């Protein structure tokens, strides 16, 4: 057994006994990253043999992927916490340098695999900014529709896993049941349930199918009563409240200092949502509320996501009304392949198709950073191009990666059982954490 431990030992990345840890590292693990914030309430000088370092993960039953948490416990109380990540590092940023811009969507879509369309969206927006092209109106509205449906699916997944982590196992079944409806619409439109490769630079890959309005409205009619059921099941329930209220509290100042965004920042009462503050696509033309919490605890984060599903449905209904007719992708020959039917007729179309799919289209030199609001926070894409058909550097600013820095602060002083609730409320997706 000692052999196996040696193989999986991650050396300096792990949590070491107190005597082995420098002051600065200990401060990080205690969550005392802000100057002037002391955690002396729990910081008793305990010696190493009174505390226990336990390892949670990377394979553990909580459904948050391969996150490894090392906790130092004094009894049941968490004193220090260190997340060890990298167990899903896929080299996607390096891979992106090897793929063309058109293939880039397939790569980034697998980062945040709970909301793949948002990854594709941010990548496509960045490439379009570099290309300086304007995407047709219909494509923008389709992208908004898909992005909001994706937000609903991701938050339903959160409700399912959060419920299961805290013991409401039927919530898992309900969440997945409702998510299936959204995925069925995605399958109808994009061909796949996940990792769609649908939103591409220039527009979207295909137009919405016939009858999409009925499908979407049916979904929006079905969900509200279910959300009310979950409200009844969870929100008012004393056990749920006991387990989530006051757990994992963070203030606005701490969240901004730690660069946390998304529901974590909004739960502190700060209404920061990129769709409202720095609108992209046509979010300034639809009416929706930014949901905020008051206490910055786990309950607020749960309630925010539940209500964001309602707000997304509101946006979706408006999009159904406002969807314009038109092209679903830009007609610029340099960027968009010709319609499939034309390939049989025209040699030029065939060559053009061939060039775009093998060589790829060239993007002028430059660098941009574009950010959108994903279900987890600010999802950014930084692309530097050197004028060729492949990105010189592509970097995705993953919200979960940055939000994980709040974990030591949130867990400090709590119980082990609360640790599960806290991870679940931060809602990390390890695909985007490790890329």
């Amino acid at each position, binding site marked *: 057994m000692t052999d*196996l431990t040696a*193989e*999986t030992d*991650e050396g300096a990345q792990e949590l070491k006994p107190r005597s082995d840890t420098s002051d600065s590292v200990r401060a990080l693990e205690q969550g005392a990253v802000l100057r002037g914030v002391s955690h002396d309430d729990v910081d008793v000088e305990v010696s190493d043999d009174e505390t226990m370092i336990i390892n949670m993960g*990377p*394979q*553990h*039953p909580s*459904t948050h*992927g*391969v996150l490894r948490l090392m906790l130092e416990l004094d009894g049941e109380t968490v004193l220090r916490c260190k997340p060890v990540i*990298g*167990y*899903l*590092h*896929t*080299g*996607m940023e*390096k*891979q992106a340098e*090897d793929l063309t811009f058109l293939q880039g969507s*397939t*790569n980034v879509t*697998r980062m945040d*695999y*709970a909301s*793949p369309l948002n990854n594709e969206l941010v990548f496509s927006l960045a490439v379009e900014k570099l290309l300086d092209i304007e995407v047709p109106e219909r494509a923008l509205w389709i992208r908004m529709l898909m992005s909001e449906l994706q937000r609903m699916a991701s938050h339903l*997944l959160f409700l399912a896993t959060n419920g299961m982590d805290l013991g409401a196992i039927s919530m*898992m*079944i309900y969440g*997945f*049941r409702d*998510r*299936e409806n959204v*995925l069925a619409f995605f399958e109808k439109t994009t061909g796949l*349930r*996940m*990792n769609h490769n649908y939103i591409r630079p220039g527009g979207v890959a295909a137009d919405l199918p016939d009858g999409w309005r009925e499908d979407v409205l049916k979904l929006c009619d079905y969900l509200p009563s279910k959300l009310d059921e979950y409200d009844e099941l969870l929100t008012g329930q004393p056990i749920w409240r006991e387990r989530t209220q006051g757990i994992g509290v963070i203030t606005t100042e701490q969240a901004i200092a730690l660069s946390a965004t998304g529901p974590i920042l909004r739960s502190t009462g700060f209404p920061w949502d990129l769709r409202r503050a720095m609108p992209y696509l046509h979010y300034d033309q639809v009416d929706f509320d930014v949901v905020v919490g008051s206490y910055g605890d786990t309950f607020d984060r749960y309630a925010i996501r539940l209500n964001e599903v309602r707000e997304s449905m509101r946006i979706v209904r408006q999009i159904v009304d406002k969807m314009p007719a038109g092209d679903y992708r830009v007609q610029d020959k340099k960027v968009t392949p010709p319609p499939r039917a034309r390939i049989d007729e025209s040699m030029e179309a065939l060559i053009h198709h061939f060039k775009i799919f093998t060589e790829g289209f060239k993007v002028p030199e430059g660098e941009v950073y574009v950010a959108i609001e994903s279900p987890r926070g600010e999802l950014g894409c930084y692309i530097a191009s050197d004028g060729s058909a492949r990105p010189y550097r592509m970097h995705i600013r993953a919200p979960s990666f940055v939000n994980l820095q709040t974990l030591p602060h949130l867990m400090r002083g709590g119980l082990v059982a609360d640790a599960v609730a806290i991870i679940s409320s931060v809602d990390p997706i*390890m*695909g985007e954490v*490790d890329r």
Partner: protein
Amino acid sequence: MGLEDLQHNFLTGSLEELVKWARRNSVWPATFGLACCALEMMATGAAHYDLSRYGMEIFRASPRQADLMIVAGRVSQKMAPVLRQVYDQMVEPKWVISMGVCASSGGMFNNYAIVQGVDQVVPVDVYTPGCPPGPETLMHSILTLHEMIRTGEITRRRGETGRGAEYHLDHPGPKVAIGTPH
């Protein structure tokens, strides 16, 4: 230990059939969801595509209690020793389904960070294609595995070579009726 050591005669013949039937109908998977395929695996276990009808809805967190490891997702260099450790902790008889192209061969990530096929680390019994494989494809691979358990094909092979069955699932829907050994 196990069926292989039993002396094969008339009496133990029907006992073997009983044991194989029992093993096949209560395969408990270990939770080994790594990446996107994990979401499809969870969807397969959820209400719409129910795994409970095959006796498999309990995903055991402890490898000691699990029979089947569904490697769902890409295995990175850092994760490979952990994968092996969990596999070693499982008790015989155990089976491995490599779910998705990333687990089967490295998938679209042919680079420094991903193990190019989980069979470099553990012996695999069924390879499931797809990125991610939909719940129906995953169920097809699980049912294929069940067939191999029911006919005893898999336990015998493992005893001989120590390797997995390495069955490549090559079409998304069952073209043969369940019950016919491949």
